[in-house]
């Protein structure tokens, strides 16, 4: 395998990792505040559909992104009303949101475009442009570092950079601000937050709104990347993001590492499939299942225990 192939694999690693990372960080905010979110998949899917539809109709990916994110936030709010306001089961609410998005996206898309549940292809001007970082062309011919900079780091759409930037921002917000401290406390010991006179309900709503925003970006990325919306186009990425979140033990930098790892598995799959290693042939299905298998192993606590936020999954009921 030569150097340029490697660059190509890492390049697509970034592309695969971007929606995972955005969704994973969405889950991070939500779960750190004590709201378990298995509806990441549905929110991404809803956002992908609305982005695809609106971007096609208006001819602007930015309006698509805006509308898609609004759709994702709306789904987040349903989750919030059910699980924060009405103290409902967060898991069940998440499951419902996944089905709601899966169903509504097809029903509305069929009625809207009559294409059997997909949206029309976006013309190039209604998609995000690749951003060429400064000096990318000039440095192209520098050995080793040139291709790394101009092929791998430069030349992605804006959401790739947004996702990467979201990692330090998330870290700083959660671990270096008062808001972040309170948000994490709402997920560990909501009673104490309440005693301090801070509203747990409001904190949790903020968290799920941020989660909605990030899932919206993830969905918009998928619609833009594929240049349209198709049925079930998230294809379990919301759950891989959830797996990555657990794998990363609910920490932002580790989340990035895990999403890059899972992205790498997808990117490298075509090169690994049906090749044999030590006499064993690698089936493509095995590579598909690997993120899930790794997560189960992590969950089992064999490779360092993954301990979720302590109050995660429990509705906070104020003492009377």
């Amino acid at each position, binding site marked *: 395998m030569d150097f340029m192939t490697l660059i190509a694999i890492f390049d697509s690693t970034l592309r695969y990792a971007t929606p995972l990372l955005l969704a994973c960080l969405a889950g991070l905010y939500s779960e750190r505040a004590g709201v378990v979110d*298995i509806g990441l998949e549905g929110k991404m899917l809803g956002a992908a559909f609305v982005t695809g539809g609106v971007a096609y109709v208006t001819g602007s990916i930015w309006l698509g992104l805006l509308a898609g994110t609004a759709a994702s936030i709306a789904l987040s709010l*349903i989750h919030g*009303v*059910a*699980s924060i306001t*009405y*103290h*409902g*089961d*967060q*898991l*069940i*609410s998440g*499951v*419902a*949101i*996944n*089905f*709601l998005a*899966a*169903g*509504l*996206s*097809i*029903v*509305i898309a*069929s*009625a*809207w475009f009559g294409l*059997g*549940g997909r949206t029309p292809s976006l013309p190039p001007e209604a998609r995000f442009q690749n951003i060429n970082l400064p000096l990318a062309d000039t440095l192209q011919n520098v050995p080793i570092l040139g291709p790394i900079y101009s092929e791998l780091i430069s030349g992605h759409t804006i959401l790739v950079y947004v996702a990467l930037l979201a990692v330090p921002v998330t870290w700083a917000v959660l671990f270096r601000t008062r808001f972040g401290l309170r948000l994490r406390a709402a997920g560990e010991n909501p009673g104490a937050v309440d005693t301090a006179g801070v509203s747990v309900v409001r904190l949790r709503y903020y968290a799920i709104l941020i989660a909605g925003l990030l899932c919206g970006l993830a969905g918009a990325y998928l619609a833009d990347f594929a240049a349209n919306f198709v049925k079930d186009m998230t294809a*379990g990425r919301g*759950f891989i993001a*959830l*797996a990555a979140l*657990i794998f990363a033990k609910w920490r932002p930098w580790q989340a990035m590492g895990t999403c890059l790892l899972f992205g790498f598995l997808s990117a490298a799959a075509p090169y690994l499939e049906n090749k044999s290693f030590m006499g064993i042939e690698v*089936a493509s*299905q*095995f590579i*598909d*299942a690997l993120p*899930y*298998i790794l*997560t*189960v192993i992590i*969950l*089992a*606590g064999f490779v360092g225990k993954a301990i*979720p936020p302590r109050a995660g999954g429990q509705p906070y009921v104020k003492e009377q």
Partner: protein
Amino acid sequence: MKKMPRWADVALIPILNLLIAFIISGLVLLAIGKDPWAALGTMIDGSFGSSRGVGYTLYYTTNFIFTGLAMGIASHARMFNIGGEGQAALGGLGVALILLAVPWPHWTLALPAAILFGGLFGAAWAFIPAYLQAKRGSHIVITTIMFNFIAASLMGYLLTGVLKVPGKMAAETAKFPEGAHLPTFHEMLAPFGIEFSKHAPANLSFLVALLCLYVFWILVWRTRLGYNIRAFGESESAAVYAGINPAKIIIITMLISGAFAGLMAINNVMGEAERLIHNAVEGAGFIGIAVALMGRNHPIGIFLAALLFGFLWQGGAELQFEHQIPREMVTVIQALVILLTGALDNMVRRPVEKLFIMRYKAKGL
């Protein structure tokens, strides 16, 4: 303070939830420019208007009874087994393996074997998540989700590999032997002079499903194990005081749950397809969640909810033909039912409770 009467809890609230789900679905149909009443008419006609429709409705109902029971038993131990989909897929594998391995002379011999293997394989797929929950505290919801995906990959691998008929394109096993054919409703009802459609997949498994509902009732409310499961579900700490071993209850409950899900394979794999096909479960595992929630984890409720979703599935297929409304409309209704009965239950329950309390006060109770 006296709360609601029991009938309100078991009947009124679910019916109100369902009504709201239907109203919202109707609004969605209006919004996309379709007539909800015409759609409802088509669905009722398509699912109950002919013996073929009834046969399809009851076929789906059978699937949902099994997955509903799987969810229900886990819920009694306050566990959320979201892995019914994978467990049912593995049940299919068990059924296919045993039916292909032996040249079965007659279904009376094949069915018990299929029940045994379907149940065993389903239970086995639930075992690892159960063990990890019981012994290592790994959250059962997350592990069962992961196991659904792992199951899908595994089945894809097997059906495109060792189980595939060599030389054929389709990712499916060979057809099961003639002797493994389960009587369909058409064949079962013909001796009584009843003409039932030949083209409907409803088969003897429906009766097995009804039997399982009864077994479920006996198990949960008439055995020591059922008592332990319910006690554990009510309060883990109280159960521990009563000498119940939590790890044991978690594992046993999940094994039973996985077995119920796996049993679905006698209907969709043995009864209908008569071979193992790709993605044979078709989301029935997830519908079990809605069925158990709506049915309040009680056999009668599970039966009625399974029938409702059987109607929705069959009727939903007709919507596609008649009104160009995609079948996914049923997924929307399913989502709303899960949301309203499972997560937004308090939204309906609290006002209804208040109404009853006001009435009690007015009567001076």
